[in-house]
C-alpha cells in the first residue's frame, strides 16, 4: 500500500530553498518522515528546520491541518491522505534586552586614560593590575533579583568595572523596599526597579553596559537569559526561583554565587558544579510551603543584605578574575546578632538529581509545583471568605477572628477583638479553639492564614475560613483608619 500523500506548506522565507514554491506534495506516514523527505530533497533547508541531532528546531512550529504537533504526538504525529502540514516560523523578539542593535562595544586592548584614573586603586593591586581590570571589562555577570542583595551587588560590580551587567527583575519600587535597597531613591517609588537601577548604575559608571531583563525568570526564559553571562548571582527571595537559578546554572555550566538572608542571618556560597556541589546537593528539596517565612513575613535587618550582597560581590569578582579561593564547597553563615561568621564544608552529592553522576533533572521543570506553591490557591474556595463577609460575621458576633501573625506585626496594627496566635504556636494551642465556633483565620495578606485554615480543617474543624487578602485587604476595604505595612 502506498503512503499517504500530504501537502506541505512552506513559509515565504524558506521558499527560495524549494524552487520558490509555496507548497509541495510529499508522501509519508508521520511528520518526521515528511520532514526527512523534505530535507533530503532540498538539502539547504535542513539548517533552518533541524538541529544537528535531526530534531526540529524550537523556533519552527509544525501544524497538521489546524493543530500544533506539540499538542499531538510531536514529530511522531501520524498523517493521513490529503492532510496539510504547515511549517510555521516562530516569530519572536522584543525590546529586551535594552541593547539596541550593534553596539556591543568592540573588544579593545588596554585601558583608556579615564579608566586608568577610575580604577587606579585596583590597578596597583598585584592580584588585579592592568590585566585583571581588562579581564573584568571583558566579563559579564547576571544579577537575578534587584532587591536587598541586588542593590549592593549592582553598585559594587558596576563600580568595579565589570563590562556587561545583566539585571533581572519584574517589580516596581515600593516604600517597604527603601529600608534596605539602597540602590533606589524615594523619588523612584512606583517606578519599575530596572529603570531606576539602570539610571543609577549608568550614572555611577557609564563604561559598564547595563542590560535589563524586565521579566520574571521562568523555565521558559532562564536558559536564554543566563547563557549570555559568565557568572550568575542569585539575589532571589523565593524558593522556586532559587531552584530555577541553580538548575539553569548547572545545565549551562555557569558558576552561581548564592546568597540568602533572613532576619539577622545570612548565607553565602559559590555553587559551581564543575568544581563542587550545587544548591541541590545542599538542599535536594525545598521546605514545605509556609514553613520558612519570607522576609516580607519574617522581617530582615536593613543592613543585612548589604553585608551578604557585598560578600557575593567579592566572590563574583574573584570568579571573574580567576583569583583567590572561591567559596566553592563551603557555606558561609553570618549571624549579625552574635556578630559571628561560621563555615560549613559542603560535599558534592554523587546522587544529586541535577549535578550528580546520573542526573534525573536534565531540563528545567515547573518550579512552582516543585516547591508546592499554587497550593494555597488550591485551598478550597468554599473555605475562603472576603473581608466584607468576614466583617459582617464578626459584627453580628457570629465568628471569632484568629490572627496568626507574629507579635511584632500585631503591635503595628490589629483588628479589634481578634485573638493573636502566631503560626508556630497554633499546633500547640489548638486546644484553646472550639470546633463549635465559627473561626475566621487572618494574617497579613492571606497566605499564612490559608495554611492554618487547611491545617485546622485537616484536624476536623468544620467551621474555619480563611480571610482572603488578610489585614491588608481589611484596611483597604473595611477600615481605612488602620495602618498598612
Amino acid at each position, binding site marked *: 500500500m502506498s503512503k499517504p500523500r500530504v501537502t506541505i506548506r512552506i513559509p515565504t522565507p524558506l521558499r527560495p530553498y524549494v524552487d520558490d514554491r509555496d507548497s509541495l506534495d510529499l508522501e509519508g506516514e508521520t511528520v518526521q518522515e515528511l520532514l526527512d523527505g523534505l530535507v533530503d530533497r532540498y538539502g539547504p533547508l535542513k539548517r533552518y528546520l533541524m538541529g544537528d541531532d535531526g530534531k526540529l528546531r524550537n523556533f519552527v512550529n509544525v501544524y497538521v491541518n489546524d493543530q500544533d504537533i506539540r499538542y499531538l504526538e510531536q514529530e511522531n504525529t501520524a498523517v493521513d491522505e490529503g492532510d496539510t502540514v504547515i511549517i510555521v516560523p*516562530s516569530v519572536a523578539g*522584543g525590546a529586551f534586552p535594552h541593547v539596541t*542593535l550593534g553596539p556591543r562595544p568592540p573588544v579593545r586592548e588596554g585601558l583608556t586614560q579615564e579608566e586608568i584614573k577610575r580604577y587606579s586603586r585596583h590597578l596597583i593591586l598585584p592580584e588585579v593590575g592592568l590585566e585583571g581590570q581588562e579581564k573584568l571589562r571583558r566579563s559579564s555577570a547576571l544579577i537575578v533579583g534587584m532587591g536587598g542583595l541586588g542593590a549592593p551587588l549592582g553598585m559594587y560590580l558596576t563600580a568595579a568595572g565589570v563590562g556587561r551587567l545583566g539585571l533581572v527583575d519584574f517589580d516596581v519600587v515600593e516604600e517597604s523596599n527603601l529600608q534596605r535597597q539602597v540602590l533606589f531613591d524615594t523619588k523612584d517609588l512606583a517606578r519599575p526597579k530596572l529603570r531606576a537601577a539602570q539610571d543609577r548604575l549608568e550614572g555611577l559608571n557609564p563604561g559598564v553596559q547595563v542590560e535589563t531583563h524586565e521579566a*520574571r525568570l521562568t523555565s521558559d526564559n532562564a536558559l536564554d537569559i543566563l547563557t549570555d553571562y559568565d557568572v550568575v548571582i542569585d539575589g532571589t527571595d523565593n524558593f522556586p526561583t532559587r531552584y530555577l537559578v541553580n538548575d539553569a546554572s548547572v545545565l549551562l555550566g555557569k558558576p552561581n554565587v548564592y546568597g540568602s538572608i533572613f532576619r539577622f542571618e545570612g548565607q553565602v556560597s559559590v555553587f559551581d558544579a564543575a568544581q563542587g556541589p550545587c544548591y541541590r546537593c545542599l538542599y535536594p528539596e525545598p521546605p514545605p510551603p509556609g514553613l520558612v517565612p519570607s522576609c516580607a513575613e519574617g522581617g530582615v535587618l536593613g543592613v543585612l543584605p548589604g553585608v551578604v550582597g557585598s560578600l557575593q560581590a567579592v566572590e563574583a569578582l574573584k570568579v571573574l578574575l580567576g583569583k583567590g579561593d572561591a567559596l566553592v564547597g563551603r557555606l558561609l553563615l553570618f549571624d549579625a546578632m552574635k556578630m559571628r561568621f561560621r563555615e560549613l564544608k559542603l560535599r558534592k552529592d554523587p546522587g544529586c538529581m541535577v549535578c550528580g553522576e546520573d542526573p534525573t533533572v536534565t531540563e528545567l521543570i515547573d518550579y512552582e509545583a516543585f516547591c508546592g506553591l499554587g497550593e494555597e490557591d488550591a485551598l478550597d474556595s468554599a473555605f475562603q471568605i472576603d473581608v466584607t463577609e468576614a466583617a459582617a460575621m464578626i459584627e453580628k458576633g457570629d465568628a471569632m477572628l484568629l490572627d496568626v501573625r507574629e507579635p511584632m506585626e500585631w503591635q503595628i496594627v490589629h483588628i479589634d477583638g481578634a485573638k493573636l496566635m502566631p503560626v508556630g504556636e497554633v499546633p500547640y494551642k489548638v486546644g484553646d479553639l472550639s470546633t463549635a465556633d465559627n473561626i475566621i483565620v487572618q494574617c497579613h495578606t492571606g497566605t499564612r492564614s490559608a495554611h492554618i485554615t487547611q491545617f485546622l480543617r485537616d484536624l476536623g474543624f468544620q467551621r474555619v475560613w480563611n480571610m482572603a487578602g488578610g489585614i491588608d485587604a481589611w484596611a483597604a476595604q473595611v477600615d481605612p483608619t488602620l495602618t498598612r505595612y
Partner: protein
Amino acid sequence: MLELPEDLLEELRRHAGEGYPAEVCGLLLGLDGEIRRITATRRATNLRAATTRDRYEIDPQDIVDGDREAREGNLVILGFYHSHPDHPAAPSRYDAERAWPWYSYVILAATAERAEQATAWRREGTGMVEESLRFISPGKVGECEHE
C-alpha cells in the same frame, strides 16, 4: 521599500497604546514586489505577555490563521509588527537573533501617552538593516492595485 497606509499605521499605534506597558504584536499582510504594500494588519496574541513586558512571541495559531486569510485574498504575510514600550523603535539584539530573513519587521516605539515613531527592518546576514517605510494616504493602495 515598505508602504503602510496611514489608517493602518493608526491601528498599529492604537494597538501599541492599548497594550502599553506590555509589548503587543501582530501580522502585516499585503502584496510583495519591488515595493511591498501592506493592505491589512491583524492583531496577534503575545505568548510572552504573562511573563514579561519586554518580549513577544506570536502565537503560531495566529500565523496559521493569517496565512489562510492572506491566501484567500491573494496576499502574503509580508512580516510582523511589535511595540517597544518606553524604548526606541530600533531592533534589540534579541530582535536580530530571532528575526527571519525576507520578512519585514515593523517596530513601534510606545510610551504611556501614545505610540509615535515606527520603523521597518529586515534581516540581512546576522544583523538587521533598516527598510525604508513610507506612509501613504489610504486611497492610494487601491489606485496602485489597478495600475
